[in-house]
């Protein structure tokens, strides 16, 4: 069965390492914060200028001056730091963030990503996404494997305007965890009960299927 949003977040959280500074995008990536493995310590970066993002505030702690990049009210953890947008993107662009998790519309075998614009529909803007994908070495894209109409989002070549070029190496979908290498998706893990055949069918870009593809366990 396809992973739930929570399971996707849980699977991504396994990539967290002790001491990581992590930027989590809006949507599924945000949920990753709920599944930090026991015994490890990470610091969440919010690109509006907060390093050390905490939980949502209790009603009596809500402060209009303390928000995250999704414009939600948040708290900061002890040992947090707060700074300007220029400093925040100095961290991001400078490669100081250890892991970035963000959503996408499409990813292709060259590591290109499209996540910000659907021509003809409204253009909302890229926000910090272009900086995040250009600045990080270690990025995990989370998205459904295919659209509701069944169209694959793992392509030979992105159709939509790009967010970044040649920067994606890891993709977690609701069906599989894949790595991008040498112009192909490598199927590394599949969702529990999801067959390799289904993943093959729903992957438009070149897919390499190793002999053994383990099922994820939750």
């Amino acid at each position, binding site marked *: 069965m396809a992973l739930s949003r929570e399971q996707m977040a849980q699977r991504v959280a396994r990539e967290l390492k002790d001491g990581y500074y992590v930027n989590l995008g809006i949507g599924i990536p945000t949920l990753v914060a709920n599944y930090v493995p026991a015994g490890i310590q990470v610091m969440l970066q919010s690109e509006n200028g907060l390093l050390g993002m905490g939980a*949502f505030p209790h009603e009596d702690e*809500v402060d209009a*001056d303390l*928000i995250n990049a999704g414009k939600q009210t948040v708290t900061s953890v002890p040992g947090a730091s707060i700074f300007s947008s*220029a400093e925040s993107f100095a961290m991001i662009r400078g490669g100081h963030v250890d892991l970035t998790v963000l959503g996408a519309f499409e990813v292709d075998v060259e590591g290109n990503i499209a996540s910000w614009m659907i021509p003809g529909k409204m253009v909302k*803007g890229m*926000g910090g996404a272009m900086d995040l994908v250009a*600045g990080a070495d270690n990025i995990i894209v989370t998205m459904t494997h295919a659209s509701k109409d069944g169209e694959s989002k793992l392509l030979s070549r992105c159709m939509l305007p790009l967010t*970044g070029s040649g920067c994606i190496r890891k993709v977690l979908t609701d069906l599989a965890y894949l790595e991008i290498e040498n112009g192909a998706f490598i199927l590394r893990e599949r969702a529990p009960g999801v067959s390799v055949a289904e993943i093959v069918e729903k992957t438009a870009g070149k897919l390499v299927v190793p002999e053994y593809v383990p099922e994820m366990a939750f």
Partner: protein
Amino acid sequence: MAGLDKRVNSYQEALAGLTDGMTVLAGGFGLCGIPENLINEIRRRGTRELTVVSNNCGIDHFGLGVLLEERQIRKMIASYVGENILFEQQLLSGELEVELTPQGTLAEKLRAGGAGIPAFYTATGYGTPVAEGKEVRSFNGRPHILEASITGDFAIVKGWKADHFGNVVYRHTAQNFNPMMASAGRITVVEVEEIVEPGELDPAQIHTPGIYVDRIIKGAFEKRIEKRTVSI
């Protein structure tokens, strides 16, 4: 008001000299740390054909959104404008020109503008529509694009506390784009919650040194919350 004392007594005085066609740099991220009263004063003045540089464009009926309602903005330079229905309408009707800019590139363009750096290279946006028409050059084997700095005729900034000399501190994440806007305005106007005597702020803890600031005014702020999210 002598010398280094930047205090002005009214919002009218705060924006004296703002005229049609100017470029205005506005601090804030979403509705957090926006110069609400200065925006309202621009509305009151009816200044038109403005180019506005801001990460976002407010929401309908609040923040920079009010200037859209009055059709005072000709061009918007921003990274994300998705919270605003009027924006979409004016964009589609051709009334509004938009230059979407990656958030970090926008912050750096403004910092560069304030710091006398006319242009810099960044990998952000390479291979995307943002790179169209821009010079590409490789550094360390990786392609980068050349981005030009931004300055403005006016910067409108929201601080927390300031002293008479215009030294400003910001509160929590209401800092965001405000320091860069302050540094890149030819005339920089800062509205704050509290004005203190020189010497009350710790010199080593000033976010925006007074050298960047031309006028300061104390205001009252609604501080509307865009997405109130709480833990239960």
